């Protein structure tokens, strides 16, 4: 059966996929280069009885998304660097209170206002560690418009299933690319919705431990009258500073990602089987790397690419396997060196790890990667 193919702008693909995934609430604030997501959502949501609102600021946008999600509706916001910084406190709230939500970061050059219309990959560490305190967060980094579409749907599924905020992060180039996408029929698409609390209302414990470490949610109006707070809480949802209870609940919170690792992790391996020279990168840089691998292989250099699609939690075992026979690992990234730190941490001492960094707002091109790897292989 022929699929339904559309030629789409990256940011529009994100909006359409969100609606297909069941997103019925979007709150945002205009910011380059992500604004097209808000614009498209403002058009699409009324068609499916959803709600779009342009909030007064970036902080309020994620606050409203969390409010809608706690009301029982799938919700999303989109932003870029400066707005992503402003959203960090509420992202931490969503992590601790376990509120499903999707936060899109179409990344641009920074720091500060930086280069609004230029791509960068300099939020890699912020996306993982931007909010204060130990907190679970999933970060997904697509590298094409088609993947923006499929990964937006997966972002909602993971967020709903695990009650974890999911950051969908792609650079300005990917966000503004026009590519062909196979669009899902929303009616046939099987999407995941959070587990709702059932059974006894009186003894309901909103943060009780479960086998998958994800407690079911109470829906306001269902008679459970739960309490939700950003304070460290007990299984019953109310604040506590009892060391034993805090440790138990924090450990359960942080265990969610490890417990469900198999489902969360996603990556692409290109010619990694016998690779002596491994490239690890994401987004637009991965597209340059794919070309570089092709060219190098033709020249007889055993190059390969490992691309984390789920960036955080980092697919450690898969990377180690891909890098098992590598003499050197190159990490091209559009920042001053972030992902390379994770790769250094995971690599053996025998393996040479180097970065290829660009911070001028221009994407890394295949020739730059090839030149660097040829230096190694000489």
């Amino acid at each position, binding site marked *: 059966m022929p699929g339904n193919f559309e030629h789409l702008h990256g940011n529009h693909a994100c909006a359409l996929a969100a609606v297909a995934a069941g997103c*019925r*609430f979007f*709150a945002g604030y205009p910011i380059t280069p992500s604004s097209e997501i808000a614009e498209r959502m403002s*058009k699409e*949501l*009324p*068609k499916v*009885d959803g*709600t779009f*609102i342009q*909030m*007064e*600021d970036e*902080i*309020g*946008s994620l*606050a*409203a*998304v*969390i*409010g*809608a*999600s*706690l*009301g*029982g*509706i799938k*919700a999303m916001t989109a932003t870029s660097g400066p707005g992503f910084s402003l959203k960090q*406190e*509420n992202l931490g*709230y969503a992590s601790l209170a376990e509120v499903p939500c999707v936060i899109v970061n179409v990344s641009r050059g920074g720091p500060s206002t930086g280069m609004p219309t230029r791509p960068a990959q300099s939020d890699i560490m912020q996306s993982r560690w931007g909010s204060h305190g130990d907190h679970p967060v999933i970060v997904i980094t697509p590298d094409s418009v088609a993947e923006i579409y499929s990964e937006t749907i997966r972002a909602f599924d993971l967020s709903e299933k695990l009650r974890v905020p999911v950051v969908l992060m792609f650079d300005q180039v990917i966000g503004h690319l026009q590519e062909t996408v196979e669009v899902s029929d929303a009616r046939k698409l099987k999407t995941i919705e959070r587990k709702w609390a059932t059974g006894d209302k009186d003894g309901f414990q909103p943060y009780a431990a479960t086998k998958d470490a994800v407690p079911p949610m*109470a829906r*306001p*109006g*269902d*008679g*459970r*009258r*739960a*309490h*939700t*707070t*950003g*304070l460290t809480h007990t299984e019953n949802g*109310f*604040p506590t500073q009892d060391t034993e209870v805090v440790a138990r609940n924090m450990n359960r919170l942080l265990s969610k990602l490890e417990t469900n690792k198999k489902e969360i992790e996603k990556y692409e391996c290109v010619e990694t089987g016998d690779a002596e020279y491994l490239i690890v990168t994401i987004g637009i840089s991965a597209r340059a790397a794919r070309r570089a691998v092709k060219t190098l292989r033709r020249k007889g250099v055993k190059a390969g690419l490992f691309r984390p699609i789920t960036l955080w939690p980092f697919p450690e075992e898969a990377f180690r396997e891909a890098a098992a026979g590598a003499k050197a690992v190159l990490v091209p990234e559009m920042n001053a060196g972030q992902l390379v730190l994770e790769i250094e941490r995971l690599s053996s001492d025998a393996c040479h790890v180097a970065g290829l960094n660009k911070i001028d707002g221009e994407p890394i091109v295949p020739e730059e990667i090839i030149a660097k790897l040829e230096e190694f292989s000489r």
Partner: protein
Amino acid sequence: MSNLAPDISAHEVTPPGDFEIKDYLRLDLMPHFMCPGCGHGIALRALLWAIHELGIEKDNLAIVSGIGCSGRVGAYIDASTFHFTHGRPLAMATGLKLARPDLTVIVISGDGDCLAIGGNHLIHACRRNLDITCLMLNNEVYGMTGGQVSPTTSESMLTTTTTTGNIEPAFDACKLAEAAGAGLVGREVTLQVPTLKNLIRDGISHQGFSFLEVISDCTEIYGRKNNLGESPEMILKQKSYLRPESFGNTGDRPFRPNKLETGVLARNGRPEYGVAYRAHAARAKTRGGGK
């Protein structure tokens, strides 16, 4: 204290009827954390009384609060309660109410939460006019953090960050809310609980955004620091020489009813945002909309 005794004969005294506050509280959380003499408990009683009189089901009630002493009040209510980040309860409640128009959404905020860190959300909530009731418990101080100056601290008052007296003028939050377009704006003191209850009832009943300022004393920290006396004395002075800068200098004279403007101060019939949005969306849907 006798010279401070107010003439309450002119005030309506409403019997509580069948209202039992215990029906609306999470009694297993008692004793509560509020200091002796704090006005927040009085405001809470008035709120629950209003909810009772309006016949709002606890299951359909959502309470959203921010950070500070006011932020901790909501948890005592036996409803769906959300203790959100500092200054952001109105923004969170905006998402909640739009997603769930079937819920009665009430925000409990404080002067710091609502006017300082959350000031932007307040003016836009007023402008948007979504059907939310915001109760701003104004105790003129950051109590939870130990007594720092707030946007409503009266001039010359002592706090831990204005040890020689506050030099900043205080906000008149009601004028701000009115100018920003709130559907209903009102102020009341905790001295007159039935009157406060009636104001809250008006606010919740109004189809649109209601901003209600409740003058609620912090006796333990602010009162003590400024030698304002015990709780009863502070309550009796609620309409008098406190807050002279914002509300006209009345001099150092005891209880002067009507000096501090109270009651419903502004009301307008602007369309409620949720209704307006849904009507607009329905029209867009019928038209189909282009790509």
